[in-house]
C-alpha cells in the first residue's frame, strides 16, 4: 500500500469526498489557489474548480458563519481555520449556531460542517501557532471532536467527519504532519514512510467517529492519549520499561468510554497525557470518568501530564511540551503509588 504523509492523507480524504459528493465544498484562508499554508488543499481548486474550493477573506467568523448557512442549504462544507489558535473569532458561530441548529430547529435545519485546524506545538510557533483548544469544544453539546494521530486514521476519520450529519471539529496535530513525533526534538525526524500507519488505502474508507484504538497492549497501566501524545506515550513506555497499554482516543466527543473502562479495569492504573493546559483540559474529563467508572479497580491516583497552565511560550517550548521524560516520571510514580 502507498505510504503518505498526514497532509497527503488529509488532502486525499477531501479529494475522495469531493469526488464522491458534489455537495462537498472546501474553503478557507489561502486554501484555494495556493492550496493552504500547510498545503492540505493543494490541487483541489484545479481539480474541482473555484466554486468548490476557494480562498476566503481573513474572517474565521465569516468562514464558519457562511459554512453554517451553506450547510443549512444542503452543502457539506469542509473548512480550514489556518491554525487552531485562530478559531476564537468563529467560536460563537460554532458554539451558538453550528452546535445547536439541529436541536433548536427540531431537525428542520442541520449543520454537517467540518472545521479543520492544525493544532499543537513543537514547531517553535509561540503562543499563536501552538494551542490545543480541544477542551473548549468537548464542553459543547452538539459538536463532535476528532484528533487523528496518523495518516491512515486521518484519512478515514476525515472522510467520516465530512460524511457525518453533524458538525465536527477536526484537530490536526501539526507536529505529526510529516512523521510520528515522539517528543525527542533533538533526534532526527522519522518520516511517515517509515511507519506502518503511514499506509493509506486508496479510495473511500471511513474510520467511525467515537471509536478508540489500542496502540500498544499492556498489563501494568493504561495511558490515555491522542494526537502527538500517542508517540510520546510509546516512547515513555519503552524508555521506562513499563508494560503500558496505550489507548489512542481518536474521537474525544463522543468518547469511546467502553474502550477506556475496559483497559483501566484491566490495568488498574491510569495516566492521561495531553499537550493543552492542564486545568479544565480534556484530561480532567477523562480522569473524572475513569475514577467514576473504574473506582474499585484503581490502585493508584490517576495522573495527568499536560502542558502547564501558562500561555504556550516560544523559547521554552521544550520545557512546556509534555515530553517522554515528564510522562515517564509520572508513569513511574503511578506504578509506585
Amino acid at each position, binding site marked *: 500500500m502507498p505510504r503518505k504523509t498526514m497532509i497527503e492523507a488529509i488532502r486525499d480524504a477531501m479529494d475522495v469526498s469531493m469526488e464522491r459528493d458534489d455537495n462537498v465544498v472546501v474553503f478557507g484562508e489561502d486554501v484555494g489557489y495556493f492550496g493552504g499554508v500547510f498545503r492540505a488543499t493543494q490541487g483541489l481548486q484545479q481539480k474541482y474548480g473555484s466554486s468548490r474550493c476557494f480562498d476566503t477573506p481573513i474572517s474565521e*467568523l465569516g468562514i464558519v458563519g*457562511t459554512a453554517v448557512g*451553506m450547510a443549512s442549504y444542503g452543502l457539506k462544507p469542509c473548512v480550514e481555520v489556518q491554525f487552531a489558535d485562530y478559531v476564537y473569532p468563529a467560536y460563537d458561530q460554532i458554539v451558538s449556531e453550528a452546535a445547536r441548529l439541529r436541536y433548536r430547529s427540531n431537525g428542520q435545519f442541520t449543520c454537517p460542517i467540518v472545521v479543520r485546524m492544525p493544532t499543537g506545538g513543537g514547531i517553535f510557533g509561540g503562543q499563536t501557532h501552538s494551542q490545543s483548544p480541544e477542551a473548549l469544544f468537548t464542553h459543547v453539546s*452538539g459538536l463532535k471532536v476528532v484528533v487523528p494521530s496518523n495518516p491512515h486514521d486521518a484519512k478515514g476519520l476525515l472522510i467520516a467527519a465530512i460524511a457525518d*450529519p453533524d458538525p465536527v471539529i477536526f484537530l490536526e496535530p501539526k507536529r505529526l504532519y510529516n512523521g510520528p513525533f515522539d517528543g525527542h526534538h533533538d533526534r532526527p525526524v522519522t518520516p511517515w514512510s517509515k511507519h506502518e500507519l503511514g499506509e493509506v488505502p486508496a479510495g473511500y474508507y471511513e474510520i467511525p467517529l467515537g471509536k478508540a484504538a489500542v496502540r500498544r497492549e499492556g498489563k501494568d497501566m493504561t495511558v490515555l492519549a491522542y494526537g502527538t501524545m500517542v508517540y510520546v506515550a510509546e516512547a515513555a513506555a519503552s524508555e521506562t520499561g513499563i508494560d503500558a497499554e496505550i489507548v489512542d482516543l481518536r474521537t474525544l466527543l463522543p468518547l469511546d468510554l467502553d474502550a477506556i473502562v475496559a483497559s483501566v479495569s484491566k490495568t488498574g492504573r491510569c495516566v492521561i497525557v495531553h499537550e493543552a493546559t492542564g486545568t479544565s483540559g480534556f484530561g480532567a474529563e477523562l480522569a473524572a470518568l475513569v475514577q467514576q467508572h473504574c473506582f474499585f479497580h484503581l490502585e493508584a491516583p490517576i495522573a495527568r501530564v499536560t502542558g502547564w497552565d501558562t500561555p504556550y511560550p516560544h523559547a521554552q517550548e521544550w520545557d512546556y511540551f509534555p515530553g517522554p521524560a515528564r510522562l515517564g516520571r509520572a508513569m513511574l510514580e503511578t506504578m509506585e503509588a
Partner: protein
Amino acid sequence: MSEDAPLRFHVPEPEVRPGDRPDFSNVKIPQAGSVRRPSVDEDAEQFRDLAYSIIRVLNRKGEAVGPWAGTLDDEELLQGLRHMMLLRAFDARMQMAQRQGKTSFYMQHMGEEAISCAFRKALNPGDMNFPTYRQAGLLIAGGYPMVDMMNQIFSNEADPLKGRQLPVMYSAKDHGFFSISGNLGTQFVQAVGWAMASAIKGDSKIAAGWIGDGSTAESDFHAALVFASTYRAPVVLNIVNNQWAISTFQGIARGGSGTFAARGLGFGIPALRVDGNDYLAVHAVASWAAERARRNLGPTLVEYVTYRVGAHSTSDDPSAYRPKTESEVWPLGDPVIRLKNHLIVRGAWSEERHKQAEAEVLDEVITAQKAAEKNGTLHAGGKPSARDMFEGVYAEMPPHLRRQRQQAGV
C-alpha cells in the same frame, strides 16, 4: 504641541428622554415619490445618495406616487392589509397570553408590520429568510399556520420545536423561514452563506438576511458584508431600523454616519433606505433587491426606517428610557392605517369593511388560540416530554446521552 486642549469623551445622546417633549423634527423625511428608481443593473456608485434618503410611495393623502409605485394590485394590497392586521391582532393576543402566564415571553411588532409582511410577498417559493425575532410577518404573509406559531409560543405538546426554544424563536423550513437564534446578528452571515450555496449549485433561489439597527454593531454584520461583497452573493440584506435597541437609541450603534444603509457603501454594495411604514414602498424596494439577487447582480443592503412602538419584549418597560408618547409623533405614521387609507383612496376599501375585517381577524386569531391551547400552554395541559430534551442533539444519539437519558429516567 502640548498646548492642545484636553480631549473630551463623546457619548451620543438622544434628543429627548422621559419627561421631555418627543420630537422628531431632526428626522428628514423626503416627499413620497421624490426618490428616483435606478435600474437594477445600474452601477451602485451612481446612486449612493439613496443610502441617505428615504424611498416612499404613499403620500399624506394616501396616494401612491412616484417611480416606486405600482408593484401591487388591489387584491394584493388587500391581502397585505389583512396580513398586517392579523399580525397586530396576533401580537395583542400573545402579549395578553404572556401576562396570563401561558408563555414565558413574547416580542411584538407594533409599528413594524409592513416590513416583514410586504417583504415576504417579494420572494419566491424556495427562497430563504434568516429572520430575527421581529419578522413574524414573514410567516403570516407566507401562510404558515398561526396555530403552529402559538404552539411554539406555548411550548405545548404540539410545539413543532418540542419545547426546546424560547417563545417566538420559530423555525419553518418549508415556509422559507430559518430557525431563529437568540444570539443577535449570527444569522446575517449565514444568509450570505446560504445564498453562496445557491450560486455554487447554479440554483435560482435567493436568501434574505435580517438584522436590527442595534445589532449592526455585531461582528456578523461585517462578515456578512465582506463575504456578500466578495462573492457577489444573491442575498438581500435587511436592516430594520426601529430607532431603538432595547433602551439604547440608534445613535449608539450608528455613530457618526448618517444612516445604517451607508454601511453598505464602503463595500460597493448598493444600499437603499426605505419608509418601513409604507407597505408599498417596502414591497417595491424588496422586489427591486430580490430581482438584483436573482439576476446574479449580487447583494443589496436595505434599511427600513420605522419605529418600535411597543416595548422591546414582555420583559421591558420603555417608559424608563423614552418619552411615553414618542410613538405618537413618529412622522412615518402607522403602517396599517396608511395602507387602509390608501385602499380607501383607491376605492377598494372603506371604514366599514375595515371594522368588519378587524372583527374577522380577531376571530381568526382567537380560533387559532383556542386550538393551540388545546395542546397546552407553558404551565398547563400537554407539554413536550423530557425525552424530547435528549433527542436531536445529534442525528444519532451517542452513548453518553443515552446514559444520561436513562439516568433521568425518561
